[in-house]
């Protein structure tokens, strides 16, 4: 799967939790999920479950701890496909 397609799907999955729509409109690999998109940190576990379901992968808790930006999520998921 092309990285651009993974990116597109990651952004689509994140969208319902995003509080800053302006930041979403100019989302990039370096966009921080909590600080820029204002996703509630408690909801990250739901985002990870959605990643697992959408891409049919499993993401370990220790891998989740390394995800800060949209790019971190895209690279983590791409590495498991």
């Amino acid at each position, binding site marked *: 799967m092309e990285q651009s397609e993974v990116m597109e799907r990651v952004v689509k999955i994140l*969208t*319902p*939790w*995003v*509080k800053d729509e302006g930041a979403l409109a100019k989302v990039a690999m370096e966009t921080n999920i909590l600080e820029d998109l204002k996703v*509630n940190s*408690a*909801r*990250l*576990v*739901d985002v990870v*479950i959605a990643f697992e379901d959408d891409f049919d992968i499993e993401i370990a*808790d220790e891998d989740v701890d390394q995800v800060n930006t949209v790019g971190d999520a895209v690279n983590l998921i791409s590495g498991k496909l």
Partner: protein
Amino acid sequence: MRAGEHKRVVITGLGVIAPNGNGVANFEAALRKGQSGIKSQESMIEAKFGCTVAGTPEGVDELCDATFGADELMAMNMNHRYASLAAIEAWKDAGLVRPAHDSEEVDWQTGAILGTGIGGMDTIAGKVVPLTNAGKIRRMGSTAVEQVMASGISARISGQLALGNQVTTNSSACSTGTEALSMGLERIRAGLADRMLCGGAEAASHYIWAGFDSMRVMNRGSNEAPEKASRPLSASAGGFIPGSGSGVVLIESLESALERGAHIHAELAGSGVNCGGHRMGGSMTSPNPTSVQRCITDALADAGVRPEEVDAINGHLTATGADPKEIGSWSRALGRGPGELPPITATKSMIGHALGAAGGLEAVASILMVEKGFVHPSINCEDVHPEIEPHASSIPHELREMPDMKVLVKAGFGFGDVNACLVFKRYES
């Protein structure tokens, strides 16, 4: 302060999600027509219930999509959805503006007491139990706790409306919603809040209703005629029909309402709350008739209303064997015998017994009746129960216009032998 001389508290907002109509206008129209909201339920048929009909609101998902964000809805089970829709309608009806999510302003003078009987059972049964049993704890996600904690509904609404006063959830079985209004009344009278959102909610879930079906207290004999199934006051009543939804009322100090120029629906003049102590005929599942009568007379005394001033009654009246006892209690509490009781009606005949939501839903019905001067029909009791027959003239089979109505009393009685009673008065300045 003597009874009846408390700080005055009025109702300025109403909201409702009911089996026979969502929104106050639709609900009122349905009540006036005697329109049932009881329908056959596939989930109950599949699970082999004895009773397979229930009252469930329709069109709730569409209302939610138009009212809440996608992220909010992912954390809102049925109980949250019903309660939130009703609360926001009551808020807007009171002329208040829903705050923006990014506003940092908190309304310190408004709180919420929103009760539930069984709570987030749909989340417990549909998510928590199966995922736990399957060893898939981490897949439960972040939203399970807030949907199953008893206070989830009041907490949800505090976030939607930035409420900063007391925010809590009460639970007293079938008197929950009625008790919530009494608790809010006391808080405003004590000067601790200007406004309180009060009422109750209960989800539509066959998991909630299963235990009652097992107790054989739900009507098993009318599955082929759902709209005829809920039969309070009737000789052929075979048990209650489960209902669901939410009724929420914004109560407010008179000073605050006048200062805001708010429309006043009615006055909440007094209340009574007690328990029969599981003595004198009372038990976990039966009311102590003495405590029921005391609850009614306590409420009247609190309101400064004499028994002969009561113009109408919205009873608890569930369609179980307790109906004749309840009528006897009203008669004794008011000192009014056969032919003397005011019109007494059962909202449950149309919406079923909404358990923790019943008091909230029926309070909305009661307030509409006292504000607009009518008593809605009590349907499905053409064959009045023989023990109630002496009071038959007090049962409205059709809509009764009562333009001069001034006082309506509403009561709710619940498992645990608990009682709550509210006295509503037409507002006079």
